[in-house]
């Protein structure tokens, strides 16, 4: 099969998924008496503003990191559902640790990132250890570990580490860990934007974690495709028995893959931390689960995941304008996200089968030719 045809098949699937989601949501909008063209028009018009683009990038950043975290495990056929718990715990511990030290800027930021990645790696690694030593399926253990992290560890630690004052007694209006010094916060990218286009509206920031996310994407690509470890990872995912026979230690690979996945997961909360400087009592949750959807949509490919994160972020950001313009209820964006995922899964499977058929056909043709020659 030609490279071009391969590319067309690869792109056809996500395009079909988005197209199908558009058709489905149009039908739903028509059913409830909204005009889909007006709704899509409002969404696109809103998204064309610079401030909205910044919102989309800010939202896509943690989604992307979360997607990469899930994808690393996926490449080895491990399903890390625990990104949610890993990132919240890492976010909290990093916020607290960061508030305790004062260091020069670069060191302070590096310290916070290292703490976050270590906590994420350790917490995800625990699921890996459970799998190789006790045979506990990582799906089960990571779900359990999520519950332990969110309702247990985080709930307990946030009380221990809460900065003074309480809303109830009217001595503060902000609840959470003590604020991190300015030196520990990644600067925003407003200056860069200003060079390219114009100044942002006051109070708007393009998160500096975006750069970190891009680095994570590049490292992921190199690690998986250009290193021995990456080869072992993919081999173990493709056929664990063959990999084992080939000398890849399966236990070590499982623990390593889970730990690296968790280390990346630890960075998911950095987008919020670097912007606010503390861990609040109501951190943005659900990013770990959204990462699964984004990784699925992106086929575990670093560029594909970016594409998935941007689509999800665009839809999330659109819910506001739809409500204020009255063009459609906000739930339509959730429906579109769901339909895109479902359609993507179906479309990828269809593309996969088409490719298999194609390969079988060309193999048969080649065989036929060879026989004719003989």
């Amino acid at each position, binding site marked *: 099969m030609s490279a071009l045809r391969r590319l067309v098949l690869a792109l056809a699937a996500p395009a079909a998924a988005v197209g199908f989601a558009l058709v489905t949501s149009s039908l739903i909008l028509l059913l409830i008496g909204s005009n889909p063209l007006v709704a899509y028009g409002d969404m696109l018009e809103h998204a064309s503003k610079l401030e909205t683009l910044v*919102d989309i990038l800010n939202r896509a950043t943690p989604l992307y990191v979360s997607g990469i975290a899930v994808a690393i495990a996926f490449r080895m056929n491990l399903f890390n559902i625990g990104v949610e718990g890993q990132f919240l715990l890492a976010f909290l511990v990093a916020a607290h640790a960061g508030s305790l030290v004062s260091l020069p800027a670069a060191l302070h930021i590096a310290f916070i990132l290292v703490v976050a990645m270590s906590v994420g790696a350790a917490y995800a690694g625990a699921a890996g250890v459970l799998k190789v030593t006790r045979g506990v399926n990582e799906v089960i253990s990571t779900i359990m570990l999520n519950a332990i992290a969110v*309702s247990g560890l985080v709930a307990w630690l946030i009380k221990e580490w809460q900065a003074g004052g*309480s809303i*109830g007694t009217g001595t503060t209006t902000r609840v959470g860990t003590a604020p991190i010094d300015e030196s520990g916060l990644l600067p925003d990218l407003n200056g860069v934007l200003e060079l390219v286009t114009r100044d942002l509206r*006051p109070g708007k920031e393009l998160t500096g974690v975006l750069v970190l996310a891009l680095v994570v994407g590049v490292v992921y690509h190199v690690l998986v495709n250009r290193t021995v470890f990456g080869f072992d990872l993919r081999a173990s995912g493709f056929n664990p028995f063959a990999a084992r026979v080939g000398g890849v230690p399966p236990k070590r690979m499982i623990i390593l893959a889970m730990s690296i996945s968790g280390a990346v997961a630890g960075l998911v909360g950095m987008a919020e931390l670097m912007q606010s400087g503390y861990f609040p009592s109501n*951190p943005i949750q659900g990013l770990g689960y959204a990462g699964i959807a984004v990784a699925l949509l992106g086929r575990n490919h670093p560029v594909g995941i970016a594409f998935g994160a941007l689509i999800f972020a665009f839809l999330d950001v659109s*819910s506001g304008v739809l409500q204020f313009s009255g063009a459609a209820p906000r739930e339509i964006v959730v429906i579109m996200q769901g339909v895109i995922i479902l359609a993507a899964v179906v479309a990828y499977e269809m593309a996969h089968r088409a490719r298999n058929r194609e390969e079988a056909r060309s193999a048969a043709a080649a065989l036929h030719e060879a026989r004719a020659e003989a």
Partner: protein
Amino acid sequence: MRKKWKALLPAMAVIAFAAAGCGGDEGSGASSDVSVGLVYDIGGRGDQSFNDAAAAGIERAAAELGITFTEASPNDDGSNRGELLQLGADAHNLVIAVGFLFEGDAAKVGAANPETSFAVIDSSMIDWAQDPPAPYGEKIAGLVFAEQQGSFLVGAAAALKSTTGTVGFIGGVRGVGGLIEKFEAGYIAGAKAVNPDIKILSEYITEAPNFDGFNAPDRAKDIALAMYEGGADIVYHAAGGSGAGLFEAAKTQSEASGAKVWGIGVDSDQYNTVDPAVQEYVLTSMLKRVDVAVFEAVKAQIDGTLVGGETRYDLAVDGVGYSTSGGFIDDIAEKLEEFKAQIIDGTIVVPTDPTQA
């Protein structure tokens, strides 16, 4: 293939109707040029409690003051609060945000939109990092409630009506900056003011950052049943949507044991909002007049009297109180009014921290 598609249709219709039910932007005749962007907290309308009270306030403002308004609520993870406030400021003179979680975003968006007024429910909108603490902005109002005072009165009502000498409290989420603890503190203080030896069972459904406690009626029911089993005959809840489980538990327990037990509602007059089957178990409700605060904020915007920083709604201005629907506490009304007068004139200072109650 065709058959498969047809099988999907009912499911799609259900999704469509569900989506339709959650929409609903409406305005009314414009006799005032004030327009309001009302941003609910997660979940929007239909929570039978906080958001619905704000909705009642804005509808009254639309009917009586002739303003127009648009409603919105955040994504389920609350990630777009700031964006909603900005969208509201783009098209309205006044943006009302329902819930203290909007504080940080409202301060930022308020600073970026000095022409627009903002009002945030449940936050004082005072910047405590400044010395001395000062409002975030001249046109950024914070509307706060003395929930402990209203809770004191229902606590007193519970102690007066209890025959077992044991009452209970169910909080939704512990550790949200002491917000729900305020209800607990007032309730305990009120109960003890009547009967210093009273036994008070107290439990929270979840702890922050797990916010499920505000919408877990099944768990509220379990906790309430355990409290009734433990000898409590009146249980007060400050748990938003979970409260429905408390009243169900009161009915279950009353029917099983033959001795009547009660629940006490919160925020709105829950006698009028609960399932009619459990209505007779709603002893009273602690009223938190979010509707009044919303209405008054709109009125202040029209009159040009909206002030930055804290506006407090307490017993003195009927910003909090207790309901008498059902007539179950008519016999103790005199006593409660006495307490109320003492709180208003400062003879009784109600604590906000349960450890001091």
